[in-house]
């Protein structure tokens, strides 16, 4: 086979800060997704393009469930809508058995529209306006209260409803080294959580069915989960022993790190990111040990996981095309591609893997990748090793499944097509590219500007 032509370049010798791992020599590239040529996808759906792999999504889900179900009898996954609320993605998870986890009235309605039984919608978050809270409680959703103010509203709602109202409590706790998210829920160590329980019991109108904690996101030190779940199990044990409350669920939230690299770390992802087995062992062992003294096996609370980014990140990819190249003053080569922080919000904290979609040979050099926006901050990778790409070449950026399709924006540019490749190799358009009419659909012009 004829090797592709590589034009000669002169690159500055970099003798300064050397990377102790050295610069790997490789011609990494990815030309297909699940056997589907990327060039064909671009031809058909245009650029840039988000692509989801159902196969990867299912595989990830099964790995998660395998790991937990060997260690704890009742584990349920609640799909965290904020991570990705594209209908097709949500429904894929619900098909697999995921419940829904929502943090707003908007997400709640999305879950309902996706056909999720309200009894399997976990409603979290610090902001549940009265009508929204009322609807969720009426429906019998799993509502985790964040504050006493929320409780008072729930109590008022309970007095209007005929069926018993059940709630859970969001808890926070000190985890030693890890910075815990302490602005949500009731604190355990200070006694705030126990006081809330007593207040709720005194109110008599509302049953406590569960407890919930979400200790943060991208938590890769699993010891934090052990500490948190130990405290939750102690709390559950105390509720049962002292108040006769037999909790139905313990929700440990999300936060599992995905196989992405946090900006500024050197370690490669595979070394640093715990496996599902590691997370499961860290969570299930202390949980089971902590509960067995007072809970009979058949009444063990359901363990709810709200893992978001880990479940979907790898299933999603962004394909983008080089629109121009330039040499920076520093000598570094620059690429301007058609997807920027408007589409890849997560590039603010991740160093995504960026690969060419065809073989460009072994000769790599440092690049900076810019997005298409007219903003200095629109940088996808400040520094990345790539071969010599030209205008019109495309790259695949991954993992990109988590938080991008919810946090993307129509800033300067419209949002592109999103497709999903099914397990059996079919491609389905799951979100059509926007046009200006769609963007302006809601706009009106006041009469004084008319004419």
């Amino acid at each position, binding site marked *: 086979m004829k090797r592709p032509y590589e034009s000669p370049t002169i690159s500055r010798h970099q003798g300064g800060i050397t990377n102790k791992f050295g610069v790997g020599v490789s011609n990494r590239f990815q030309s297909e997704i699940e056997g589907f040529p990327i060039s064909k996808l671009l031809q058909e759906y245009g650029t840039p393009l988000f692509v989801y792999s159902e196969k990867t999504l299912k595989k990830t889900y099964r*790995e998660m*469930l*395998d790991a937990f179900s060997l*260690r704890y009898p*009742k584990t349920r996954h609640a799909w965290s809508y904020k991570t990705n609320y594209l209908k097709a993605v949500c429904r894929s998870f619900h*098909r697999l058995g995921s419940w829904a986890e929502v943090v707003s009235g908007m997400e709640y309605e999305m879950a309902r529209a996706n056909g999720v*039984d309200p009894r399997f919608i976990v409603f979290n978050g610090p902001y549940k306006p009265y009508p929204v809270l009322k609807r969720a409680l009426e429906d019998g959703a799993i509502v985790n209260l964040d504050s006493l103010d929320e409780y008072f509203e729930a109590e008022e709602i309970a007095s209007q409803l005929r069926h018993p109202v059940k709630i859970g409590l969001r808890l926070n706790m000190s985890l030693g080294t890890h910075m815990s998210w302490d602005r949500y829920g009731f604190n355990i160590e200070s006694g705030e959580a126990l006081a809330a329980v007593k207040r709720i019991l005194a109110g008599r109108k509302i049953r406590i069915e569960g407890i919930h904690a979400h200790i943060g996101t991208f938590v890769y030190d699993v010891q934090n989960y052990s500490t948190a779940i130990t405290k939750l199990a102690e709390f559950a044990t105390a509720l049962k022993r002292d108040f006769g409350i037999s909790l*139905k669920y313990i929700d440990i939230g999300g936060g599992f790190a995905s196989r992405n690299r946090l900006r500024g770390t050197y370690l490669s992802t595979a070394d640093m990111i715990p496996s599902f087995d590691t997370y499961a*062992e860290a969570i299930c062992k202390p949980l089971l040990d902590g509960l067995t003294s007072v809970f009979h096996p058949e009444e063990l609370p359901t363990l709810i996981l709200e893992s978001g980014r880990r479940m979907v990140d790898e299933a999603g990819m962004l394909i983008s095309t080089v629109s121009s190249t330039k040499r920076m003053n520093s000598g570094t080569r620059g690429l301007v591609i058609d997807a920027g922080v408007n589409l890849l919000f997560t590039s603010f904290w991740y160093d995504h893997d960026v690969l060419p979609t065809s073989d460009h040979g072994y000769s790599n050099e440092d690049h900076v990748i810019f997005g298409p926006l007219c903003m200095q901050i629109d940088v996808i990778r400040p520094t990345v090793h790539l071969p010599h790409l030209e205008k019109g070449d495309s790259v695949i950026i991954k993992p990109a499944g988590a938080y991008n399709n919810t946090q993307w924006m129509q800033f300067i540019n419209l949002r592109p097509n999103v497709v999903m490749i099914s397990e059996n190799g079919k491609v389905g358009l799951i979100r059509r590219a926007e046009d200006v009419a769609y963007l302006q659909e809601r706009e009106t012009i006041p009469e004084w500007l008319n004419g």
Partner: protein
Amino acid sequence: MAERLSYLSDTLLRSYSQILFSESRSVGAAILASSLVIPAHGFCGIFGGLSSAAFALVIGMDRIAIRKGLFGFNGVLTGLALGHFFSLTPQLLAVLLVGSILVTLLTILINHVFMVHLAAPAMSMPFNVATWLILLASMDFGILNAALPREALIALPWEPPYPADLFLKNIGAILFQFSPLSGFIITLGLLAHSRIALVLMIAGFLAALGVQEFLFASEPQWLTFNPMLAALAIGGVFLIPGPASLLLALVAAVLAAILVHANLEAFPQNLSPLALPFNAAVILIVVALRLRTYSSRAVQLTTGFGSPETNLKNAQAQRKSRRREMRIGVPFFGKWKVTQAIDGQYTHQGYWRFAYDFQAVDSSGQLWKGPGETCQDFLAYGRPVLAPADGRVALTLDGVPDNPVGSINTDQNWGNYCIIEHSPGFHSCMAHLKPGSLMVSPGQPVRKGQPVGLCGNSGRSPYPHIHLQFQSSAIPGAPSIPFEFQNLMVGGASTEPLTFLSHGILRENEIVENTTLSFDGSLFPCIAGVRWAYEFKTSRETWESMVDPIGNTYIESFPLRTRLYFHDVEGVFEITRIEGSRETGLFLFGASISELPNISPDRGHVGTVHWLASNSADGAVIQAWPPWIEMSHLLSLLGIAFQVATKYQMTPTPGRRHISADPRLCLKLPFGKLPLKALPKKEMLFADGAVEWLSIEGTTVLRRVK
């Protein structure tokens, strides 16, 4: 008033029907009528029955039990006995009143002692004791006159041939009336009520006759009713009718016949053994059966007796409730592969044939991750090992080190283990545990599903796995005994259709999932008082879930009443019994389904699930069943029965479960099953915790209205 009258008549009639283990008013009426062949004698029975029931009522015994005749029947018998030995005078009535009080007190005491200490029925023991006591005391009473012989009064218009005459006389003898006429009336009542009962009585009679012909010279007069009742009690009342029960019934009859002769020798001249031989024979057998380890043959009924036919119908339900007494689960969480089953080629042989080895497996069928060279690579290693059923820890061993992968330790074959006693003579043993992982100690009670240790690689174990066997003693390495698992999901990798196994054994390479603990909630949130509205064919119907005073859960339909009794354990909804109208949608639903695993994606289960269920074929299963089929129950004594075998398939999607049922009528023979014909296919949909609709051959006949 009407309520009181019906209470009174129920109490009276059932005080008679209970003599033949029946609660049927018509059987009671027949016996009552036959006792009135000699009115004065019959009156003593009524007086005894009513006064003992009244005394029980006055001192506050359970009104339902009284209404079932459970107090009255010993009174009736005592009355008839005393009325037989003495002629009816005011003095006799006075003595009889005392006797009735005595027999009620004895009923309370003896029933209590028998139930608590023997778990066996006392039957007519109170009557025996009360009658003996009164008879003994009466030897000092000058006021009672011995009755005159009265057989002459009560002949049949025609003389039945031998041995039918003897049979009829002995049936009459149950009421102390040695007349073919009363025997004939009772036989007619019995024929109408239960053919199986009649056949059993005849079998018992013939067995007793055989014993007499071959072993004894002297005739035992009228006491042959003892073997007859023994055969009825064992063959149709306390056991589910069938070939094994029939054999045991004959054993009971022979035993009772021999006891009659033994007692006749032992008892003083003027005392009779009464029903003691029958009671003793039945109690001996019932207690022995209750204490046995394997109970797959001659299965005992544990609750309420109907006619043997009804008992047969409830056999399915009874099998389920027997299962409920000890539901054996797998000793792990999640999905594991059976790497060696019963009679496995490696080590499950000889004494240790009834054993299983399990290794944890992931969705892609892998047993290990990475190179598989260390224990840690194996998914099973370090996972919790669970008690397979409730029990008490009998023996544990810890401290045996784990082997490196591929090597075994034959010095300490079982490695670290935990042996649990579940019932006398029934122990489980989980072996090859990880050293230092035991979480329980001998003497400690454990619950099904409770972790006892972690899976390791100690003892004769080349790869981390769990060895599970049941054995009759707590000694490690004791011979294994057979057992069945309950409520499992069996299948391959997660994408393949799974099979729900309500009970059974496992085979090598099957992948088994422990679902008993992961199921939560039930298909019907049957908190008493939940209601559903339906349109069935053209009429409206309401269903309501209820709990009766004993704690049985059922759904009842209105206005036409059908009752569907069910269990809801370990996330499996099982219909145990259907009563009442057959014209309702509830009946149709109950007849379409027998057990329903509560599987859905919301509960962590995806994909289609299959299962098979067989039910006895009677009106409860197939509507428009020819009436003669009731007669076919007689065949069940020989192990032949009509059955409906149904293939179920459930496809769950979030919040909805679609079920199709493909029933087939079969003839069950002792050596196999003969398919007869396909029955109409049914489909139903569950959503929102209720039946949404049900269709037969594609036509929707039941629809929920909201």
